[in-house]
């Protein structure tokens, strides 16, 4: 009996998290007058894209967002100001002789066409800094208790230490071989960075960090640089002189191997980006079903569709939890395999 009550309570808590953000509420009077069905695409894109402000709740006039600093580097001048000065694109900001305006996609342009290097603290950057802080807090405290406490670990350390050992033994040591210790810091960092950002991106009001292709691009560039730098003679030999290949096939095999150097990290990038973004889009679309039903059938339709929609969202949320772990595991595993290929000895 108590187990059933606990289960129902858990379902309610998960259901609360399933309603990702209150800013979905559309302007119903406008929609009813124009007699158009609710278009979910702008809202969905807004939730997975990066922005210069952190939008928490509300819609247009009564929206609450935290303005983030805009840092621009134009022709040798560094301009810093809060993004609230743009007033959602309605006004321009003048610094010296430079006039900045922001367009509907969030890109900043300068009035006389000067090239602007945008290094602002956007929502993704701010969220990444928060998750990095969280990672540092967790792992530095675990390292300290590991060094101090020679007894069996308790609490949070007991949860994370098996995971760290699993990554080290089953992913890194098995795939790289004898020289694995040099690459452990990078691969462990990649695993937990991707895992923490995947998981925290599921919370309401958070930013979609690992679903941003620039972030996954940088992670895969790191893997590419490490494999290329640590490639030994065997690695380059296999690429430019694949063993056991007859001479007639060499003109085909060697270009394929050379392209393969680049496609492997490229696939890493696309795999993580697409998995996480697709998961977010599915959840957001299922919640948008409620509002589409509202605009098509009125409030009764919305209330009718809501339980079904929330149940589906719960189901997809559980799958997305699995995908968060799986994608972190796969990214680290494939990076370890590529590094292992690069440092493999002659056999």
């Amino acid at each position: 009996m108590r187990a059933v009550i606990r289960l129902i309570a858990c379902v309610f808590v998960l259901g609360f998290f399933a309603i990702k953000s209150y800013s979905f509420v559309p302007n119903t009077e406008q929609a009813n007058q124009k007699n158009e069905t609710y278009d979910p695409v702008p809202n969905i894109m807004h939730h997975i894209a990066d922005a210069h402000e952190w939008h928490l709740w509300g819609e247009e006039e009564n929206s609450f967002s935290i303005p983030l600093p805009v840092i621009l580097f134009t022709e040798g001048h560094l301009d810093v100001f809060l993004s609230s000065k743009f007033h959602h694109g309605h006004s321009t900001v003048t610094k010296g002789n430079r006039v900045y305006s922001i367009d509907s996609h969030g890109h900043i342009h300068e009035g006389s066409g000067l090239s602007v290097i945008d290094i602002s603290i956007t929502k993704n950057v701010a969220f990444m800094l928060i998750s990095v802080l969280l990672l540092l807090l967790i792992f530095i405290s675990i390292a300290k208790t590991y060094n101090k406490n020679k007894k069996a670990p308790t609490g949070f350390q007991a949860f994370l230490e098996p995971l760290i050992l699993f990554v080290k033994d089953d992913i890194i040591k098995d795939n790289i071989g004898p020289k694995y210790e040099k690459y452990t810091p990078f691969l462990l960092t990649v695993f937990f960075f991707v895992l923490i950002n995947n998981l925290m991106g599921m919370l309401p009001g958070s930013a979609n960090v690992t679903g941003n292709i620039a972030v996954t691009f940088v992670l895969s560039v790191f893997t590419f640089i490490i494999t290329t730098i640590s490639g030994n003679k065997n690695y380059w030999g296999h690429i430019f002189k694949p063993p056991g290949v007859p001479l007639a096939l060499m003109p085909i095999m060697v270009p394929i191997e050379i392209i393969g150097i680049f496609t492997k990290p490229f696939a890493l990038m696309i795999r993580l980006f697409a998995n996480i973004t697709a998961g977010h889009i599915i959840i957001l679309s299922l919640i948008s079903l409620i509002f589409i039903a509202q605009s098509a059938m009125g409030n009764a339709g919305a209330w009718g569709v809501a339980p079904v929609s929330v149940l589906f969202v719960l189901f997809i949320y559980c799958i997305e939890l699995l995908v968060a772990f799986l994608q972190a595991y796969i990214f680290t595993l494939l990076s370890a395999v590529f590094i292992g290929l690069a440092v493999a000895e002659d056999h």
Partner: protein
Amino acid sequence: MLLQAQTMDFGAFAAIGAGLAAIGAGIGIGMIGGKALEAMARQPEHSGMIQTNMFIAAALVEGVALFGVVVALLK
């Protein structure tokens, strides 16, 4: 007829493309899962290793399917 195609909305083709990619992923991962289950039934003592390799292969297949989804998203 070519002019007609140029002024058409490509959103429908993108949706069809994404659906075909999903079919590909479904078939691929279904086959991987089926073979893995068969192997686990034949040799239960190796299920851990079989399961690990199943996840790896499934993620690779899904990566390829998601290439298609990303191209569909671009439209």
